[in-house]
């Protein structure tokens, strides 16, 4: 009996967005006490399925059953009331409210009709401690904390709400290793308590580390549900992509190769209150990897390089001549490009079409009066969509309707369209599926071979190692080490990040 009884089940789910079929005839079932990985390429329909399971969307066909009884959730609140806790893909919390309130909103304990703030704060502190967030002030505004912290708060909230089912849509995208481990401990604990857990990720290691079964979607169709014990990585990837890909592609360390001439050099560039002055030379045909912990100042360095927060000390030289970079448009005029890390806030322009999102930086470079006409735009958008394999029903579709990974590719396309000499990528592979991940790594390598200078910030050490000619390490808003040659390997980087004696590494 236990085998056939499901906590949550979906049968024959179909979902259409206009002409586009997001889901076609999907069956999906969760057993109590299992971790069920939901896998698929960007745009396969994973998030859509989750939204249908939790009442955020309504299916065009099919039914959802909770403990074998058909249910129809009106909205996420309704699903919550039935013991389904969810973390949606984009962190959906309230940056304007305190951490404690974010954890308890909607179910605050009251005393005499008033919200019991003290109790909430006390419980929030206890709750956060379980996730290793002891030094967070539950009274502080959530928005004051980094994306990673917000992600953990979102998870903690969902866990608290889930009596039967916990759904996590790419929870680990912005977490580092230790945080992921903490999360896995929590999941294991919940699993032992008999909860059903859905886990969406693009990290196959994590899938194999924690999941029991896996369901794979491709292009809105169900490919299959299998126990993981019977599958290898290659099997999973083949099911996801419908073809094999090689993992070794370009992973052999790039090492000391011939680099081109010096392109950009930062000399004592810094910004008070934000980043210690740093010096860095970047040559054509070179990829500088940037490693560091969350909040170590990597993004801040990128923002300074790109003029978003202009530097207030030092100088920047381009091809040997000092240049002034006071704004993003200055930077772009000098052939810089920057893919920001926070895609939703700084990247996509939601209501504009994919086409417009791709050409906008190029158009910004051309200025107000040299407008690209529609045909030019379509040609450019088409070229890059093909090059990066962007999956959009139409180039005129608003970008906000694209899946997360495809949005990321559009932003990359935006910068490639400006034909930059120097490109900064901040976490370019976050939320990208394996296929696209390999694609982006390949693209980085190709751009480097074409003579572009790149700075790539990434929290995935394997990846950084795969394409970097040199690696700089950030700590406490300071550039602390530069690694070359055989020092470009994950364990040395981890040591450098972890504040081992710097000299030993830098040698």
């Amino acid at each position: 009996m236990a085998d056939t009884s499901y906590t949550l089940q979906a049968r024959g789910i179909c979902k259409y967005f206009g002409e586009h079929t997001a889901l076609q005839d999907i069956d999906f079932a969760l057993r109590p006490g299992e971790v069920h990985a939901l896998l698929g390429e960007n745009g396969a329909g994973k998030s859509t399925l989750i939204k249908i399971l939790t009442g955020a969307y309504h299916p065009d066909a099919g039914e959802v059953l909770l403990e074998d009884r058909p249910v129809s959730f009106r909205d996420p609140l309704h699903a919550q009331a039935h013991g389904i806790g969810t973390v949606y893909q984009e962190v959906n919390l309230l940056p304007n409210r305190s951490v404690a309130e974010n954890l308890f909103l909607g179910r605050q304990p009251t005393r005499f009709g008033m919200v019991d703030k003290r109790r909430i704060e006390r419980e929030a502190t206890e709750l956060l401690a379980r996730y290793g967030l002891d030094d967070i002030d539950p009274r502080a505004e959530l928005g004051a904390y980094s994306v990673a912290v917000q992600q953990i708060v979102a998870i903690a909230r969902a866990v608290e709400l889930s009596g039967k089912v916990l759904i996590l849509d790419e929870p680990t995208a912005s977490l580092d290793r230790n945080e992921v481990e903490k999360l896995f401990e929590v999941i294991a604990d919940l699993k032992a308590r008999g909860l059903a857990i859905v886990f969406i990720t693009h990290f196959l290691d994590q899938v194999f580390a924690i999941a029991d079964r896996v369901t794979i979607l491709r292009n809105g169709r169900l490919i299959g549900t299998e126990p993981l014990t019977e599958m290898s990585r290659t099997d999973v990837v083949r099911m996801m992509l419908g073809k094999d890909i090689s993992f070794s592609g370009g992973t052999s360390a790039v090492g000391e190769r011939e680099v081109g001439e010096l392109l950009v050099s930062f000399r004592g560039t810094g910004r008070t209150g934000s980043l210690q002055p740093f010096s860095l030379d970047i040559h054509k045909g070179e990829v500088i990897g940037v490693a560091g912990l969350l909040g170590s100042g990597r993004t801040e360095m990128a923002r300074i390089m790109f003029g978003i927060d202009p530097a207030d000390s030092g100088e920047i030289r381009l091809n040997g001549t000092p240049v002034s970079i006071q704004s993003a448009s200055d930077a772009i005029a000098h052939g810089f490009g920057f893919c920001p890390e926070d895609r939703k806030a700084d990247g996509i322009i939601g209501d504009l079409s994919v086409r417009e999102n791709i050409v906008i930086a190029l158009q910004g470079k051309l200025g107000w009066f040299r407008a690209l006409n529609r045909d030019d735009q379509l040609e450019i958008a088409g070229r890059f969509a093909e090059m990066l394999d962007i999956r959009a029903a139409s180039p005129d579709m608003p970008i906000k309707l694209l899946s997360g990974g495809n949005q990321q590719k559009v932003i990359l396309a935006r910068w490639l369209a400006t034909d930059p000499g120097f490109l900064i990528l901040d976490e370019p592979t976050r939320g990208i599926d394996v296929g696209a991940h390999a694609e982006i790594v390949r693209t980085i390598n190709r751009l480097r071979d074409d003579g572009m200078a790149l700075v790539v910030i990434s929290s995935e050490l394997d990846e950084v190692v795969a394409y970097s000619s040199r690696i700089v390490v950030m700590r406490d808003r300071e550039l602390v080490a530069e690694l070359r040659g055989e020092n470009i390997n994950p364990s040395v980087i981890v040591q450098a990040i972890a504040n081992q004696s710097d000299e030993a590494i830098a040698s």
Partner: protein
Amino acid sequence: MRRHPLMRILNAQTVALAGVLLLNWFLFPGFFDIAWQDGRFFGSLIDVLNRGAPVAILAVGMTVVIATKGVDLSVGAVMAVAGAVAATMVVDGYSAFTAIVVALAVGTLCGVWNGLLVALLDIQPIIATLVLMVAGRGLAQLITEGSIVTFSDPHLIFMGTGSFLGFPMAAVIALVLMIAVTLAVRRTAIGLFIEAVGINRSAATFAGIRSRMLLISVYALSGFCAAVAGIIVAADIRGADANNSGLWLELDAILAVVIGGTSLLGGRFSIPMAVIGAIIIQAMNTGILVSGFPPEFNLIVKAGVIILILVLQSPIAQQLLIFSRRNAGKRSTP
């Protein structure tokens, strides 16, 4: 998605306009009569165009401001300022041309001031422009010293009451301005940039758009449009009435933009539709005039029509519309 051209014209705005016009015709059978008299067209419909022109002109500037997620409450006051400047200058003996140029420059300057507050000091647009809404009318009164400055310069008067090819000058100016601004933003990249800034200013800045410059320009345009409207209104009554010129017109202009389908949350915009919105509002006002309703019902009628248009435009109604279209489509393809 490609729609039949006829379907594209059949949107909430045009339906509403047709509805209001038909209602007017029903209440006043002579509504569509147009006569040729003294070298110009003459009739209620022409009045609608003529009287709607100031709000239509304001709506041109207001649309782009709203597209950047802003709003300009100061346009009414700027109208008063521009009218006062133009009138006092011709009374002081300057040529109409000089007076108009200076008035337009002053209006644009007012817009730049708003733009500076919004773009550089990052003050929220409603409040930033509220400053000039309050102080601007005071400035206008300071210029006229509270009285109506009457003038008789024929060139200046022509701006308000003249006609071009038989059509009222005000309507012609509104049309020209609408076409010019629409072309200026659509044939260049400005329109795209405005939408980008309105939807996500941070992302637009990352993409290299000079959002500050753009915002200042947009408010400057709104100030310029307000000055044009102010000159027309003053010319129309041959006097600058600093106390009443443009009073509460900012609300009409915002209403016109919203009726025209541009969201107050910024982003996609349409200038011609906003102008149609202005004409709808005026058709409503003229309808009330010719129908002989007691004036105490004016506001209620106006509110009723607005509510009707909003319901027509609301997502629910749109869905119903799409639904019925789709059904119709199904039936026609067996």
